[in-house]
């Protein structure tokens, strides 16, 4: 809310600068979002228009004789048309500084003008909100009064944030009280004195009544005012409203806004003469009930809306908007005031349904303390009486104002929670300043919160008040002890290991958005790629781009491949949650890593070196995770090429799947390069097992290469295991290192080269022994793989 410091000073004496006030408010829990600096003005005084004459040489100009002080009156020429004798107006004297204007002596059509009469724009106020012409001051202001000082025009305006629990502080008085408590000074409450003229304190006066038919109106204070004269408000009130961002309208509307901004209680004024049967009833709207609001819009209501109706129809949507029918206007002579407290949640739902949020509704939706209604009514009564109204006795229906329950709190309690020492005297000062009533016994208090607060229920609430006023800056830093506990960090540590391992093999982590448009799913469907399950929809997305939860990490990574294809090779990964399934979606923490490289030109269909390079990365990654080497076995995965997919298996458990991205998916994403990906559920993350040391043989190995012809479906893994089986314990390593298919090999076969390292742990292998082992290996290859040795 906007807090004009000029208005604040009505209730508390403060000698701090705007910045210091802002800092103080922030440390009390009311951060200041912005400080609106007011223009620096000087040389303006109040003047009385003694005489107003037509300019002899100009139809549009007037010559004013202006009394400004004891001395000689000033002659001032003005083009304004709203000047008349007897008015009190602000006068910029020679040398005055206004907004973008310094006043110098000036001849206007032959008449020397000794200054300028001032309008709103020239002192930095919204021109359209004030008189069309010269500002009109209260006639009680003595001529010669320093205008800037008297009206505190050089005070800035703070934009203060008030937390939702402190509706009482969404007001100038509320914030004044906070500052006074913190500064150890006294807050002056607003004047509520009024001379009552008729009626008695009861729910029904002879000529009107208020009936509550819904419990969502907790309390309703009503008061009648008559003999009203509608006219502009005094300048001091208009100025305060304008500085607070509220456009001045007329004295009735202004008073209702003024009271709301001043003490936090929204009011509603009904033109009493326009109320059918001259009574009000608070009830649920009838189905289809119509009401035309102040803004001229016809609203169709339903029973979810709480309305205040007269004998016939709704005259106000509670807390939100009045009806045009009973709006106060220039012809209003009698009004009925409403100062109510409604159920906040109900008002908030109505506000959302209606799409209307007002200064009043933001207060009502926080459920106003009951006591504020009576305070608001009596303040309005005082101000209306000042405007000449006849004031009837207020009456209230609904819940009585119950004093808040007392709370026991001690200095030790405060110390236990805040970790700072606060004395009993400090507690007494702080709580008294905030309006608590206290019973003190040494360092222990029974504290009764003020009736305008509805956020203080328990001891901890009061401790916060003590801490706020004493100052959180007094909390001393301490390091807590380490406690023995059973909570595990395993999931986090796993993510951390994965991220570091993938970064270690050269992949860059990405963080992409988890909500996606329908087009992602549609792309998969069009490309013939199966979805893992029902795609999960958000029921209230902000935009269609964010309607669905991601069912896979790959679409976003493929999007990055597409976008950064120029920076080849692209290696990226993401760790995140994926979602699918209905009605209860399955949430899976997962990781995907992607590599995109240039396609190898003229590569035969039966080989894919890119896949091997990617597999090599993936094996290195898996090794880092598990401390042991993974085994690859052909498998299938929806997003991968059916013939280029493998599972990574560690300790006989499949932990991840790697493969070439399905070419249909690449085409759908417009990706030109060859792209490969691995996917793993974090739940499948293998435990790291510390590798065991195996001593290397001291005896030299014998290396033999074999060239084999086998059927194409024989995998390298089959050959390697056949080799090991042929000379168990002697094969130190075996590696298929070349594959060939083509005219040099008989049709329907492939040629494989394998390098075998034979080594004994107990002696040097002789050539004859090696030959024997190779013969056994060849037999094993023949038997298990149908392999024929090439000469």
């Amino acid at each position, binding site marked *: 809310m906007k807090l004009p410091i000029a208005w604040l000073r009505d209730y508390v004496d403060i000698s701090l600068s705007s910045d210091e006030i802002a800092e103080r408010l922030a*440390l*009390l829990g009311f*951060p200041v979002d912005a400080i609106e600096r007011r223009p620096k003005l000087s040389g303006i005084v109040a003047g009385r228009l003694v005489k107003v004459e037509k300019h002899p040489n100009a139809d549009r100009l007037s010559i004013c004789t202006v009394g400004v002080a004891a001395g000689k009156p000033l002659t001032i020429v003005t083009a304004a048309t709203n000047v008349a004798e007897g008015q009190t107006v602000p006068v910029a004297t020679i040398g005055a500084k206004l907004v973008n204007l310094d006043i110098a002596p000036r001849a206007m059509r032959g008449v020397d003008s000794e200054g300028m009469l001032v309008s709103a724009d020239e002192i930095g106020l919204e021109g359209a909100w004030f008189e069309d012409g010269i500002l009109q001051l209260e006639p009680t202001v003595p001529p010669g009064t320093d205008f800037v000082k008297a009206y505190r025009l050089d005070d800035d305006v703070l934009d203060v944030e008030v*937390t*939702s*629990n402190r509706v009482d502080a969404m007001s100038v008085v509320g914030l004044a009280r906070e500052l006074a408590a913190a500064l150890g000074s006294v807050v002056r409450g607003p004047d509520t004195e009024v001379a009552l003229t008729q009626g008695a304190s009861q729910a029904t006066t002879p000529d009107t009544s208020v009936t509550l038919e819904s419990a969502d109106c907790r309390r309703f204070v009503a008061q009648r005012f008559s003999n009203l004269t509608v006219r502009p408000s005094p300048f001091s009130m208009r100025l305060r409203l304008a500085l607070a961002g509220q456009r001045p309208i007329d004295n009735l509307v202004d008073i209702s806004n003024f009271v709301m901004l001043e003490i936090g209680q929204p009011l509603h004024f009904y033109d009493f003469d326009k109320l059918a049967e001259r009574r009000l009833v608070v009830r649920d709207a009838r189905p289809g009930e119509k009401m035309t609001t102040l803004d001229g819009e016809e609203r169709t209501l339903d029973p979810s809306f709480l309305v205040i109706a007269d004998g016939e129809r709704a005259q106000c949507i509670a807390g939100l908007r009045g009806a045009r029918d009973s709006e106060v206007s220039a012809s209003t002579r009698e009004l009925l005031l409403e100062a109510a407290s409604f159920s*906040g*949640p109900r008002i908030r739902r109505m506000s959302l349904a209606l799409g209307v949020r007002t200064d009043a509704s933001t207060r009502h939706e*926080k459920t106003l303390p009951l006591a504020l209604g009576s305070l608001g009514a009596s303040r309005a009564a005082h101000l209306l009486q000042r405007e000449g109204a006849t004031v009837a006795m207020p009456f209230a229906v609904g819940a009585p104002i119950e004093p808040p329950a007392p709370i026991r709190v001690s200095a030790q309690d405060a*110390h*236990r*929670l*805040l*970790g*700072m020492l606060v004395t009993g005297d400090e507690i007494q000062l702080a709580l008294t300043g905030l309006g608590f009533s206290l019973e003190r016994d040494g360092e222990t208090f029974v504290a009764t919160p003020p009736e305008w607060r509805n956020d203080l229920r328990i001891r*901890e*609430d009061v401790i*916060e008040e003590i801490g706020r006023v004493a100052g*959180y*800056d007094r909390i001393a*830093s*301490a*390091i*807590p002890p380490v*406690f023995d*506990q*059973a*909570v*595990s960090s395993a*999931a*986090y540590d796993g993510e951390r290991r994965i*991220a570091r391992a993938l*970064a*270690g*093999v*050269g*992949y*860059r*982590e*990405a*963080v*992409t*958005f*988890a*909500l996606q448009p329908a087009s992602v799913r549609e792309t998969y469907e069009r490309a013939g790629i199966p979805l893992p399950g029902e795609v*999960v929809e*958000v*029921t*209230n997305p*902000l935009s269609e781009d964010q309607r669905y*939860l991601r069912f896979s990490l790959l679409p976003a990574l493929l999007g990055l491949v597409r976008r*950064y294809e120029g920076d080849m090779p692209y290696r*990226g990964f993401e760790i995140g*949650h994926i*979602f699918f399934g*209905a*009605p*209860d979606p399955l*949430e899976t*923490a997962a990781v995907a890593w992607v590599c995109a490289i240039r396609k190898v030109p003229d590569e035969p269909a039966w080989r894919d070196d890119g896949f091997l390079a990617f597999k090599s990365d993936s094996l290195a990654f898996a090794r880092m995770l598990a401390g042991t080497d993974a085994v690859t076995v052909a498998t299938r995965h929806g997003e991968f090429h059916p013939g280029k997919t493998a599972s990574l298996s560690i300790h006989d458990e499949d932990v991840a799947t790697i493969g070439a991205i399905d070419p249909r998916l690449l085409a759908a994403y417009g990706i030109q390069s060859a792209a490969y990906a691995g996917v793993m559920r974090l739940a499948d993350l293998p435990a790291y097992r510390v590798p065991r040391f195996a001593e290397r043989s001291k005896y030299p190995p014998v290396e033999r290469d074999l060239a084999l012809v086998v059927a194409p479906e024989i995998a390298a893994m089959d050959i390697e295991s056949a080799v090991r089986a042929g000379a168990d314990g002697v094969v130190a390593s075996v590696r298929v290192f070349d594959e060939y298919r083509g005219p040099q090999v008989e049709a329907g076969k492939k040629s494989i080269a394998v390098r075998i390292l034979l080594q004994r742990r107990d002696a040097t292998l002789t050539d004859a022994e090696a030959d024997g082992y190779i013969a056994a290996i060849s037999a094993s290859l023949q038997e298990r793989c149908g392999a024929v040795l090439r000469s």
Partner: protein
Amino acid sequence: MRAFEFPDVEEDEIGRLGDDLSALGERFEAALASVDDGDALDALRLTFLGRNGEITALRRSIGTLPAAERPEAGKTINEAVARLEAQLERASSALTNRELAAQLDVAIDVTFPAPPARTGSIHPLRRTLEDACDYFQRRGFAVVLGDEIETEYYNFDALNIPADHPAREGFDTFYLANGKLLRPHTSPTQIRTMQQHPPPIAIVNPGKAYRRDAVDARHSYMFSQIEGLLVAPGIHLGHLKGMLTGLCRELFGPNQAVRFRPSFFPFTEPSAEVDTTCPGCGGSGKRGDAGCKTCGGSGWIEIGGSGMVHPDVLRECNYDPERVSGWAFGLGVERIAMVRYDVDDLRVFFENDPAVLAQLA
């Protein structure tokens, strides 16, 4: 027919051997003088000292000497060989030194661009998150993760935000068809952990959260939080200030201070906003002559909210608020990362441009 002659050759034969050796020595020295690489040196060695070299020839001639003179002759030859070898050794080491000196006497352009190493990286948001979690782990905190789809109970009710509480409005939440929601904060993980583990408990719970915010330079509907929770006997706000001060020093530098400002959260009482010294200006509010754009000139940046866990929340988790007390805090990872990396538009973090990721790695 020498074999049949028996001249008195004693002096002569030895003398001739000496002459031969000194002539050989002269020839050797002459040849050595012209040697200027290792190969020539090896050739020289072979010529004189090799199996078929001149010395070998002289040694064979010893056999023609009377047996009594042979030791003397052998000794003479051995001495000559030692001299030659010493000379060869000196020449060899001179050559080596010359070659090493020649190797030293070159310079490359060390500023010539190197081919890029293949490097990967973790994302700056994760790095920030890990730095924070590491700090807490070193001080005995466990790190707990949680699901992003949550129930209203864990997300709101258990956190003292009943339906229709105005504070729910601050959490503009995405809902799913089954009535569950995308968590707008990571706090449900704290409730779940407390309900599974009795006190004492010391955790941080980082993770993603979602709120219905349009994406712009300072907002994103998906963001990361780090929350912390410590509940044990005797825990107070001073312990929070101490830990957060340490954390800010870990994240931003050794001179960070932490300031608490009172605030309101339904799940803590008392509550505090957490500010730390603006690392952009060191708290002065100024950068050069201009106001600091990181903190808007205040000298402080707000990094999150905190407070003492509300007794209602403790009770909901079967913790006794008369026996234990504790604090919780929540920090925005993107905000912290923006300040650390001097990024003024958080969308940078979600674009994942490899060049930027490399720059921030």
